[in-house]
């Protein structure tokens, strides 16, 4: 039944006219991608991977380790970034501060220069409050650290934040959990009251709830304060609590501790900082300009003077500093993690070369029955990509797992993004293509006669 159509010995059978088949097959084979051959390559790849379990396993491990490292690093970095961004922008992008010194000082000369500046005073804040029309809320704050005790419980260097007016609570974006904020009258009259973070309750009132702590007293820096409110917890950042602090009315703090007290050259405790909040982010620049004008005027600065005599900063300062400081670290870290991926790629290449050598005969057979160079090339490339993609998928999972464990240990939120998963599988597939290229090319250009002779 295998007669060619024209044979005179056997008439052609219906449906098997050889020439028409040959023609259509020829047309199909002209297509750049032949689905059948690619599917065949895929099945062959799976088959050979299944056949050589140990070899496949070792290759997989090579890739998995690389992808795990990259995914874990990327995930942790994204989590850190997110944490930092949330922390530093809790006041929102509508807040800026006026202070004597910038928060970040990079040289000794600058430090000396900034120290010569005048302190920020309540009068400065008053002037800003009166003259800045673009400003929505204006407040003052001074930070300090004092020892706190209640009964037998004692702690050193608890953060004290003295603020006025009560609108400063809004600027700080804190909210009440139990009790209340102090009233404006209480604040202005310097009453011995305080609002505390949730950790103060945990540490000093271990047997009471927040509600039960209201109306009780704590001793801070040798002064007694009555708790009128407890704040909702803000959580930790890098293991440091943001809830272990006590808010005092500014007038009370000033009366009890004094303002701008020199406690040493590097200590900014008690330094007054003006906080300004605008109603929306687009007003921020206008408000900054107004405040700058008011303050330069008060410091007696002319146009020529380049130094303002004060520091006007948004929270972005921290974020910018953070990202500029960390971006290089990140690149290096990811680079180091990527090296393991390169090693994985070399493992794949090595194993593919072995595979090509082992299957020389098979390549010869395939070539003899009509596989072209690109068919053989595709077959080995697909094999490399299949193993690396599977390794990549596993690596994404273990990478997320590793990141999760580390996050659990350090304590920050995790961001499992679908993109890093896609990235992991994609990058490992690319590694597969690159490391499979040379072995595949070697397989493709094998001489069929030589290859058939191989055993």
């Amino acid at each position, binding site marked *: 039944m295998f007669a*060619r159509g024209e044979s005179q010995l056997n008439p052609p059978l219906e449906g098997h006219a*050889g020439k028409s088949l040959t023609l259509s097959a020829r047309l199909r*084979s002209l297509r750049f991608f032949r689905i059948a051959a690619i599917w065949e390559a895929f099945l062959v790849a799976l088959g050979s991977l299944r056949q050589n379990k140990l070899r496949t396993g070792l290759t997989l491990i090579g890739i998995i380790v690389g992808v795990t490292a990259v995914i874990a690093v990327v995930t942790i970095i994204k989590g850190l970034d997110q944490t930092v961004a949330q922390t530093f922008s809790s006041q929102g992008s509508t807040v800026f501060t006026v202070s004597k010194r910038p928060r970040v000082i990079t040289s000794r000369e600058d430090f000396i220069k900034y120290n010569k500046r005048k302190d920020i005073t309540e009068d400065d804040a008053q002037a800003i409050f009166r003259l800045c029309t673009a400003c929505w809320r204006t407040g003052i704050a001074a930070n300090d650290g004092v020892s706190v005790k209640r009964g037998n419980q004692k702690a050193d260097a608890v953060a004290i934040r003295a603020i006025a007016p009560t609108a400063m609570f809004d600027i700080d974006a804190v909210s009440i959990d139990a009790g209340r904020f102090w009233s404006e009258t209480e604040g202005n009259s310097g009453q011995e009251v305080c609002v505390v973070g949730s950790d103060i309750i945990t540490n000093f009132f271990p047997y009471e709830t927040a509600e039960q702590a209201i109306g009780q007293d704590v001793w801070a820096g040798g002064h007694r304060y009555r708790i009128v409110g407890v704040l909702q917890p803000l959580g930790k950042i890098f293991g440091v609590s943001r809830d272990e602090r006590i808010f005092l009315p500014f007038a009370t703090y000033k009366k009890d501790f004094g303002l701008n007290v020199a406690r040493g050259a590097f200590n900014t405790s008690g330094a007054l900082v003006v906080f300004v909040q605008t109603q929306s982010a687009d007003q921020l620049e206008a408000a900054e300009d107004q405040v700058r004008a008011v303050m330069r005027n008060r410091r007696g600065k002319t146009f020529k003077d380049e130094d303002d005599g004060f520091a006007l900063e948004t929270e972005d300062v921290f974020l910018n500093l953070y990202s500029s400081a960390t971006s290089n670290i990140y690149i290096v870290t990811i680079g180091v993690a990527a090296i393991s991926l390169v090693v994985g790629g070399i493992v794949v290449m090595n194993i593919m070369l072995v595979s090509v050598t082992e299957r020389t005969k098979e390549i010869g*057979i395939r070539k003899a*029955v009509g596989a072209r160079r690109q068919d053989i090339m595709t077959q080995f490339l697909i094999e490399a990509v299949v193993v690396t993609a599977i390794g990549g998928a596993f690596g994404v999972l273990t990478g997320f797992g590793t990141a999760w464990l580390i996050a659990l240990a350090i304590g920050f939120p995790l961001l499992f993004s679908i993109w890093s998963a896609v990235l992991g599988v994609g990058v490992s597939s690319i590694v597969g293509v690159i490391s499979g290229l040379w072995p595949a090319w070697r397989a493709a250009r094998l001489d069929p006669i030589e290859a*058939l002779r191989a055993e």
Partner: protein
Amino acid sequence: MTEATIATPPATTSVVANSNLPSADGHRQVLIAMHNLWKTYDMGAEKVHALHGVSFEVRRGEYVAITGPSGSGKSTLMNLIGCLDTPSQGEYWLNGKNVSEMDDDELARIRNQEVGFVFQTFNLLARATALHNVELPLIYGGVPGTKRHEMAKQALTEVDLVDRMMHRPNELSGGQRQRVAIARALVNRPSILLADEPTGALDTATSYEIMNLFEKLHEEGNTIILVTHEHDIAARAHRVISIRDGLIEKDEQIK
């Protein structure tokens, strides 16, 4: 019907004189036309001529045995006929196509469409089932799945192995393996069936069985070229071409 017009290369038919061809076959289409074929291997300083000027024709439906002692150049000739290699010099027309000037991928296409190989050691894919082995040429020919299946099954039916089509080569006897290989060679309906010592790895009884199968295929109209050094195997063919020292020593019609 159009094939006949493109099949015969104009030059070769007149040049190649083959007085041994019976007049009864004179009207048959020329499938293989070799004209003054040389194959030279460069062994460093020395040049080895495996073939020096071989010319012959094979017409459709012929059953030809190519014989010769080892080192005679018959393997080289077989590689050329099977389009696994190209000649250093001379022309080779296969089914109307000038194969001697083709590149690797074109040769692969020709092997896929025009040549069906049967090897001494079967050369089946060890991990693949008989069916898949037979499908292999169709896969590279771009034949879609269902049609491929059907054609492969039909080819296996032809060699009486359809009931074992899901077996792997190591689950088959030598004769069965060679039949699978023959089914693979036939599945694409090639112009020529090229068998290289097809019984070399088989016992006498199985050899006999395989040779009977070739006979049957020949009767069905297939063109068969058999490369062998065994005289009794060659004697089963209808025409014997003897090669010695890279030249055709004898070319005789025996049936």
